């Protein structure tokens, strides 16, 4: 943040020097405003973290007999953290390849006239409220997935993911992951699309001139150029999937267990969905326990984002 302040100051001084006069009012206002904004963000973040810590403390120090379900805090949160990561992972695994394909189609394959309309439609997916996705999942996708999930159980039942018995209602981890995948698709593809479109023309034309096919050109120039954007898009999507509440709350049939079985009626809950489900009837220590789980979610997303930064900066040494 100080770095930014310095740069703006330097730029301001340069500008002032160039115009041969005092620093202009506009520059000063701008620099103060942007520093203020940066400080506010940091203060907000620190405030949220502080609130989570303070409110979680009673649950951390309480004995397990006082906590909901008479289990220790770790036993309570661990299945939730597992479910959170599982649902988000499914979403990212499904969404990223699809999003990259969509982005490539829009940036390199679609006819120029279609590009605008297509991009607009993908962006529109991001404008659908998550509760609507939830309702769609429970009324449309879930029931429609019952048949395919039975098929998966029969044909691929030897895999732990499809062990079954397949749910009769379709409100499973797989369906929740699918809905999350649709929800994060637009952000992943938008980030990737912007960067794919900026692949230097000379690189692309050079590849084509050397006799590369269109796929080879994309593989050799566009994808390497856009790799960090794919990673950062995926991480943004992962962040959204980790914290998504309403859709998961409505769709997922939760049971507080740890399992990789994606198609049965018994699924681990996610942290955000669990808070939404249990907060209304909670009081006292139960609320502290929920906030403690929120703290864990905060930590998970923080680590995810830091990891994303690390990956991106390693790929683009500057």
């Amino acid at each position, binding site marked *: 943040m100080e770095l930014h302040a310095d740069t703006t100051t330097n730029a301001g001084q340069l500008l002032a020097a160039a115009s041969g006069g005092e620093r202009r009012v506009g520059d000063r206002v701008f620099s103060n405003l942007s520093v203020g904004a940066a400080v506010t963000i940091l203060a907000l973040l620190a405030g949220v973290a502080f609130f989570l810590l303070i409110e979680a403390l009673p649950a951390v120090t309480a004995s397990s007999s006082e906590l909901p379900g008479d289990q220790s805090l770790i036993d309570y949160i661990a299945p939730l953290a597992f479910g959170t990561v599982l649902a988000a992972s499914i979403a990212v695994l499904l969404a990223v390849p699809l999003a990259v394909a969509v982005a490539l189609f829009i940036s390199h394959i679609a006819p120029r006239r279609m590009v605008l309309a297509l991009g607009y439609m993908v962006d529109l997916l991001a404008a659908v409220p998550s509760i609507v996705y939830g309702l769609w999942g429970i009324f449309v996708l879930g029931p429609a997935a019952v048949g395919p999930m039975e098929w998966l159980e029969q044909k691929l039942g030897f895999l732990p993911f499809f062990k079954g018995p397949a749910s*009769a*209602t*379709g409100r499973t981890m797989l369906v929740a992951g699918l809905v999350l995948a649709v929800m994060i698709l637009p952000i992943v593809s938008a980030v990737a699309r912007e960067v794919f479109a900026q692949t230097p023309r000379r690189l692309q034309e050079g590849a084509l001139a050397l006799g590369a096919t269109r796929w080879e050109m994309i593989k050799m120039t566009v994808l390497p150029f856009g790799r960090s954007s794919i990673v950062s898009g995926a991480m943004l999507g992962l962040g959204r999937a980790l914290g998504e509440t309403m859709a998961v709350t409505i769709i997922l049939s939760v*049971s507080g267990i740890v399992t990789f079985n994606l198609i049965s*009626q*018994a699924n681990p809950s996610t942290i955000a969905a669990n808070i939404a489900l*249990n907060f209304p009837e909670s*009081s*006292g220590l139960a609320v502290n326990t929920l906030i403690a789980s929120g703290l864990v979610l905060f930590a998970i997303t923080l680590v995810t984002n830091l990891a994303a930064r690390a990956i991106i900066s390693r790929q683009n040494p500057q």
Partner: protein
Amino acid sequence: MSPSRWLAIFASLAVLAIGVSACGSSGDSSSGLSGQVAGAGSTAQEAAQEAWVAEFENENSGVTISYDAVGSGGGREQFIAGGVAYAGSDAALEEEEGELGKALERCKPGKLVEVPAYVSPIAVVYNLEGVESLQLDPETLAKIFNQEITSWNDKAIAADNPGVELPDTRITPVNRSDESGTTENFTDYLSKVVPSIWTYEVSGDWPVKGGEAAQGTSGVVEAVSAGDGAIGYADASQAGELGVAKIKVGSRYAEPTAGAAAKVLEESPEAKDLAKSPYMFPYELDRKTESQGTYPIVLVSYLIACTKYDSADEAEIVKGYLEYALSAEGQKVAAENAGSAPLSPALEEKFKPAIEAIG
């Protein structure tokens, strides 16, 4: 429209508003009550409370009542802390966590009032293709929900349903994924009636892992509707098109009707040890009843208040509101809007002194 026309409309509206408020303050309303009162608590009572508030405010134009459905636990907490004048609770106040003692303390120098105001039957709903009517005895019901019985053509179910052809569909038991009074009352019924099979602790959280879980009453109804072979429990008024199982009571199979639910409360003994003031009527619901015409899977929700408040106005409003909620008319309004079972006239009479003590 021209600006002057707008002005004219605005002016006439303003005159109207002044006129209305003048009516309110000049005591033109039937009771002359005025002021604001806040309550909080049970989500089960929400629909009934909304109907009561609407009707009561209609009758008493100077009164504003708000009910915040934060959940029973939250309602009791806010009541004890003095944040709200009355609370709705799916359970009677208990000594656990010192709630009863703190509530008594909160009402001093007045007394604590606790009356059942909302009785609602909980239906066992199912979705099974080709089966129009279903009868279950408590033992079978418990085994279905603890996942001991997993197929619809199980011998135990067949024994309850002579002449019904049961398919070999897998049973999908559906429970609430959120904490709820419905779950608490349903599991309380199972653990009282068949304690050898239902060995779990009674609480608002569903105790059995591995079942289908859905959010809220509407979520359970939706999940049961979606899955062939699904069975769940929900507020009887929300059962809709779903099949409703008859549950064995004594030697007969009973349906979750309003009358049968109200009768259980009438026949249940009071939990005397929880009644710490003459105006408290906590009940120990007689889940094991065998008498004809009762249906013991019911949710009973209480109204909790004090006999004395800081201001006489507040006390008068609380008194009027509770009086209305427990009146024949109030109970009828709740039945129409929330599908609850109206209290019997005998019980209405019985709770009257408690309400009259307010103020």
